[in-house]
């Protein structure tokens, strides 16, 4: 801490450490990690239930639900990835060919 630091700033830093140290210690405990895990699981479960209800509602009206759109997006991403891979492979072959001709 610099010697010429104003008193108010020193006080803020001390207060921050007084609160921060126990908080930092708390977020490193098993209790905290377990709590985060449980909250995360509960959130996902709730979200899953809500999605299930909404999916059934949309399907009753013969309309696609958010989960259908997500699944479609995932499939398209898989296709895009495969296409990108093939593009890379073609680019490599083309580059090798160019280098062989130059060499």
């Amino acid at each position: 801490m610099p010697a010429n630091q104003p008193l108010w700033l020193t006080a803020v830093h001390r207060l921050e450490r007084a609160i921060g140290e126990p908080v930092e210690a708390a977020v490193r405990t098993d209790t905290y990690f377990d709590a985060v895990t449980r909250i995360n699981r509960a959130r996902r479960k709730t979200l899953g239930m809500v999605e299930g209800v909404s999916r059934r509602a949309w399907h009753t009206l013969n309309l696609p639900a958010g989960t259908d759109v997500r699944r479609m997006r995932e499939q398209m991403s898989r296709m895009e990835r495969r296409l990108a891979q093939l593009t890379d492979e073609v680019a490599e072959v083309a580059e090798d060919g160019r280098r062989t001709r130059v060499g």
Partner: protein
Amino acid sequence: MAPTLNPTDLVTRLNRDVERSLRRARNGVRYVRGTHRPKLGATPKEVVWKRGKAELWRYRNGTVRYGPPVVIVHSLVSRSYILDLRPGNSLVEHLTAAGLDVYMLDWGVPDELDADNDLERYVDWYIPRALAAVRRETAQSEVTLAGYCLGGVMSALYAAAHDDVLVRNLILMATPLDFDEMGAMVALLREGRLNPDELIDDTGNVPADALYSGFYMLAPTTEVAQKATLLEHLWNDEFVEGFQAMAQWSRDHVPFPGAAFRQLTELFVRQNVLMTGSMRLGDRRIDLANARGNVLNAMAERDNVVPSSAVEPIMRLVGDPARREELRLPGGHVTFGTGRGALKVTMPRMAEWIIAHSDELSEQEE
């Protein structure tokens, strides 16, 4: 006796305080409005190779006097401009000014297309191709390979598994090897808690926000102290600029490719395989002791992201024991990119080590 106040001193002090108050008001308004942000990653560079989101940049900043070229492999969790933060406070600028030919392998911002990128993709596909591009650019068969954080792990694996481009020097900056020592950063991923798939979103990657939260929770209250320090130094343009640059970087995380994240969790966090000195990648076993070249284990003494205890085993496990060196640096995880310690110690000592393990180029080679 109370000190007497000289009228001249009083006027000087008054002038200074008025001037600082005006600057404080001006910088405060700029800060709140988010204008006048510093230019980040400003060292002149050109893209010399590109595949997918990955780009290889060559920095142009003065005459190259030493070889082999230095290729920095950046981490997968943060933006690479931390190593070229701003003029006068940049590792890249420092190395290039010292006469080194510096390249940066930047991974860009992964999206759905990168969700399948696994460690093999980085170690056996991207890095070899980027280094081949460096060889074509420079006509030199060797490189100094410098990996930062997870980029260091990938660099060490490359150096141990490949001999297509010779690694004369392997620099591992804040590179974790012992994941049991990584503490809070990885504790949630250990067995019985979160599974990687619970963190991976619809794009197939771990969202940047999740990574930011992980870093934020390491020290959730320090932002208050930092903001108070900013308020005190708001009159100082240089300080405000540095603060803005760091604040921007520390919030600017990138999504982590899902496939690599699953491997990282299973192999590094849960099995801690790197501590066995070898790991299976693709269809073969890689022995870290086979890493070629001189190894520099550069670690920050006050790093709370990758603590020294996670980095120290490099001195037992990576490369030839006779060619390993350790460099302990003041500061935290970002000492490789910014801070007083970086300018005074980290950057000069890194440049010195690299130059001591490089050759002076003849005029023709330059």
